[in-house]
């Protein structure tokens, strides 16, 4: 079994990298109550992949890894810009706009995939293909994730302030819309790159569930980030480790472990009576 695990070690590394990146950004997603923005951006990202595959089938666009990421990134960042500027808020509630985006991008993505000549995007819509990750993809993920996490480590004070109390931040000269856009863009970039191998389910799971575990367990904001990262790494390792001998799909196995950790955190919180 060890040999099998070693054979897929790039998948484990990739899942951990995606997990850590999403766990950090997910703290903002959960604390700001923008969980469905994460879901909608992940769907937009998958619709981008589907669009690239469909256009590729028609001979109008390339279908290389770079082309897929490019189109996915384009749609995700457009979504991040739209949500970051509070798009559509004038006539209906922001949550409804996010819901419409989610449903529309999911439907369009599935329809495009159904008509695409290449069927390689099918799995991406739900469980991804973590086991298919190569060393090249892991390195590419690292190259994207390290600068983004570095940026977030450097600007944690600012991101926490504008998330916690945007009105007061604005009175102190913070350009809140720009900070929100920067946050949304970093979330969008991570989603677009993670989607290629992890799929909607796992990316959305990593964006939300470890952060929820962190919020349930952490007593300070620093602890929330630490627990969120630890929960993502643990879920990736245990889910991956269990999925191979038990012949289970890796993405859903990791998501299930992640949910179990959140359940344990909820129980612990109840016992702590807070």
């Amino acid at each position: 079994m060890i040999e099998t695990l070693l054979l897929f070690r790039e998948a484990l590394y990739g899942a951990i990298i995606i997990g850590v990146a999403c766990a950090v950004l997910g703290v903002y997603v959960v604390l700001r109550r923008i969980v469905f923005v994460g879901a909608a951006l992940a769907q937009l990202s998958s619709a981008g992949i589907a669009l690239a595959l469909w256009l590729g089938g028609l001979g109008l666009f390339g279908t290389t890894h770079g082309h897929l990421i490019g189109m996915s990134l384009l749609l995700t960042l457009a979504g991040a810009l739209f949500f970051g500027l509070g798009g559509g808020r004038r006539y209906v509630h922001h949550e409804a706009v996010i819901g419409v985006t989610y449903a529309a991008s999911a439907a369009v993505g599935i329809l495009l995939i159904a008509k695409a000549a290449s069927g390689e995007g099918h799995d991406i819509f739900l469980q991804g293909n973590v086991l298919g990750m190569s060393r090249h993809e892991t390195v590419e993920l690292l190259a994207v994730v390290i600068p983004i996490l570095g940026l977030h480590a450097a600007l944690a004070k600012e991101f926490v302030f504008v998330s916690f109390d945007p009105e007061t931040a604005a009175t102190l000269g913070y350009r809140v819309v720009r900070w929100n856009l920067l946050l949304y863009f970093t979330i969008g970039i991570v989603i677009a790159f993670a989607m290629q191998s992890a799929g909607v389910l796992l990316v959305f799971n990593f964006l939300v569930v470890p952060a929820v575990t962190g919020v349930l367990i952490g007593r300070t904001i620093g602890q929330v980030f630490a627990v969120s990262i630890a929960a993502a790494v643990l879920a990736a390792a245990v889910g991956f480790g269990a999925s191979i001998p038990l012949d289970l799909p890796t993405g859903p196995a990791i998501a299930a472990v992640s949910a179990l950790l959140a359940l344990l955190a909820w129980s612990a919180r109840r016992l702590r009576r807070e």
Partner: protein
Amino acid sequence: MTALIRFDGVALGYGRRAVVEQLDFSLEPGDFLGLVGPNGSGKTTIIRAMLGTLSPSAGRLTRAPGLRLGYVPQRDQVDSLYPLRVSDVVTMGRYDRIAIGRRPGPRDREAALRALDQVGVADLADRLLAGLSGGQKQRVLIARALVGEPNVLVLDEPTNGMDLVSTTQILGLVRDLHEQAKLTVVMVSHALNEVANYVAKIGLVFGGRLRLGAVADIINEPVLQSVYGIPVQVHSFDGHRVVVARSVSGGAKR
């Protein structure tokens, strides 16, 4: 005396919707101004303009050079889901002095402790904000405004949702800051009885206009009845004004 903030024919609104117009007044050093009026009349809009987060759609708004405003937002605007320590929240009031990407230093933390001490809650420094009572939370938010060493303290509905004891304590604290620390104060409230007995000047916001004057000129029966559209009585007990709205039919269906 140079005005701290001057409104010259200012109109304020959101998009094409005008909320208040023809604002012509100034905030002078040492003022204790209460902004009152019905819900949705534009009180918060006026303080947003003072704070610089809302630009006038017409007219001219000028601030004295070097003016520093300390803002105390409505308590429920501060999200209790965030597990933030009181000292960290208060330190946020100095973030405009700390370069982007830099962490608060010992001087910032000392200033935060001094501000907490000034409002009488230094012992709460290591507690989580979310675990505090309404009155304690309000004191912490006032400390955060004070830590930036403002010339003007701007409070938005500081006693909203508080019990009688907490309300009295918070208003007493704000009055002490005005009298002892010589702070200019602007306080928004929909609670006439609270504001009328603490401030020196009142701005009544209604019908898209501001009517500014001494407390006695604004808190009287003819003015309040014309604004609120219901019978109102103003009594005086032991030097305190008490505004009583006489009951009117609520329009319930029979």
